């Protein structure tokens, strides 16, 4: 296990290197003079020359890359719009994103795992049909449409919740009121996939021989379902939830846009519209790195919850 962990951590270095090269390469595809793009059409020739100097724009690709990464790590790379170090800009927006994402994830787990278990135990019952139909709608409906419908119902018609925006920390009443709708909308899609996975893996396991054996020797039905079946179904469910956790850090761009939530996803999209090239680079790079690292942690975590996994 220790060996495996060390090897995975070492493999992370080339992976991160390639990712940064690729993102840099994609952004280098921008047509036109990058100095003009950075400073705008009306910049003076001296200012353009200074920028070219700063980002080594006249040098070959690898020199530019090294310079860019150097600027990035020393905090020299500043957002054009915020006039601040891109790393700081991204990290500041991380708090609302995590509040939204983690609340949605908790909600999704709390609803979908019990729903999946009940659906699988009472197969073909009314509950099963209802929850499966809801889940099907959950994966088919666009997040922004659910959001708009909820805004119409609760903010425009009933006027009980604020339509959009961020109300401060989630531990205050105002913050919580702003959080309710976006968290529910985001969790709706998560719920759909987790419920389906829980149900299908439970259905597979409930047909196993050892379940029949457990029932035959008189183990209580609750025990059979929770201990014998559900414990073994945890693996696919954990994979699903793990994927969602990793994606969560990249921000739920659509939900954040519908509810004007000041998170990292919206920051990245707005950076494009503001032609804020350094911020686009910083956002995409930081979020991809977080995504990769969280994915790795989730992978390593499997080894702990499932001792059957043996790493050579």
């Amino acid at each position, binding site marked *: 296990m220790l060996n495996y962990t060390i090897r995975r951590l070492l493999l992370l270095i080339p*992976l991160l290197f*390639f*990712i940064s090269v*690729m*993102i840099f390469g*994609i*952004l*280098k*595809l*921008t*047509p036109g003079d990058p100095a003009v793009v950075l400073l705008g059409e009306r910049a003076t020739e001296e200012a353009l020359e200074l920028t070219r100097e700063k980002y080594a724009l006249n040098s070959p690709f690898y020199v530019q890359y090294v310079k860019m990464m150097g600027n990035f790590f020393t905090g020299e790379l500043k957002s054009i719009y915020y006039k601040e170090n891109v790393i700081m800009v991204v990290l500041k927006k991380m708090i609302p994103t995590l509040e939204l994402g983690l609340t949605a994830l908790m909600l999704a787990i709390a609803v979908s795992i019990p729903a999946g278990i009940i659906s699988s135990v009472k197969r073909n019952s009314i509950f099963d049909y209802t929850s499966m139909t809801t889940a*099907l*709608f959950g*994966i*088919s*409906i*666009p*997040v*922004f*449409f659910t959001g*708009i*419908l909820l*805004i*119409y119902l609760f903010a*425009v018609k009933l006027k009980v919740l604020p339509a959009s925006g961020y109300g401060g920390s989630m531990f205050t009443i105002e913050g919580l009121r702003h959080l309710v709708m976006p968290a529910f909308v985001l969790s709706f899609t998560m719920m759909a996939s987790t419920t389906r996975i829980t149900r299908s893996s439970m259905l597979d396991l409930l047909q196993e021989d050892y379940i029949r054996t457990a029932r035959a020797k008189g183990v209580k039905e609750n025990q059979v379902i929770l201990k014998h079946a559900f414990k073994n179904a945890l693996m696919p469910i954990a994979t699903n939830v793990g994927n969602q956790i990793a*994606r969560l850090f*990249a921000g739920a*761009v*659509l939900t954040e*846009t*519908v509810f004007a939530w000041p998170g990292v*996803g919206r920051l*990245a*999209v707005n*950076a*494009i*519209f503001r032609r804020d*090239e350094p911020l*686009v680079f910083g*956002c*995409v790079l930081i*979020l*991809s790195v977080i*995504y*990769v690292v969280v*994915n790795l942690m989730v992978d390593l975590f499997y080894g702990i919850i499932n001792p059957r996994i043996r790493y050579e």
Partner: protein
Amino acid sequence: MNNILKIKTFYLFIISALLLAVISPKAEIDYISYGIFALLTLIILLISLAIYRHKKINATTIIKGTGELVWRRLAKNRTATASMIILILLSFLAILAPFITPHDPLETDWGALSQGISSSHWLGTDDMGRDIFARNLFGIRVAMGIGVTAVVLNTLIGTLLGLLAGYYGGKTDNVIMRLLEIWNAIPFILLAIAVMAALGTGIGKLILIVSLSNLMAFARIIRGSVMTVREFDYVAAAKVIGIKDFHIIIRHIIPNCISPILVLASLSIGETILVIAGLSFLGLGIQPPMPSLGGMLSNGQQFLHENLLMSIVPGVTILLIVLSFNLFGDGVRDALDSRLES
């Protein structure tokens, strides 16, 4: 006449779909091409009706091939059939859009801003007096066209990479799969943001970025099944008698791993359409004034107080398209998966 009726419905379907796509009238008003188009559609419908009736008379219980078996299973699945009918109706609505509504989706009418349902504007008008029903029909056309194109490209590229990796193995396999892993390590939406930031927006770029998004899933599944098929005796026999790799792949490998490709492709159309609608909603996909369902929703959100129809109509349409594709995909999966059971 009898011979014509023996053409397989499947090929007729493909040919007519191609024909309809090639000569489908553009948004400009051109009555001659509309006339020809309508006539052809009518003829194709009549021929398929005739074939259907002919087949019903000669129906036998003998099943000729797996294709027919799968088709029968799909037809027996009620939800899959219903979703298929909805999809066919939607695609006809999309292709025939200029016939169905007299309004131009781009035409603004300053005398009829943000109206409700009326006999001249079936689903009302938006904030600039454009007919919502017409915009919706053209939106369906764009969404389904781009969605299906992107999935087809995605399937082709993913299958090719998976085939190469699985068939040649060793170094080729390692290089392809490692590269795909790096490609996959960046969350899709961020990749789309980076590409759009560098190259700007446009339909071609949208199709490009979406068709490169899901490569990993395709490549992995195809690689897996190719590696199993590669070990079979008939492949070894084909190699021994000196058939070239290319022909082995085309003749012996692809036909034996086609079903996971079909299942994955049909399951991912719905998701792809959702992604495209999402990008358009963000303003990164299809650009206004071209009507797109996602863009209409984002516009509708701004006028939520005044006109609910502006958001309800495109939203329900996206839901209907994606739901039908998902149900259809589930049907295809069930039909192909249970092939071995009975």
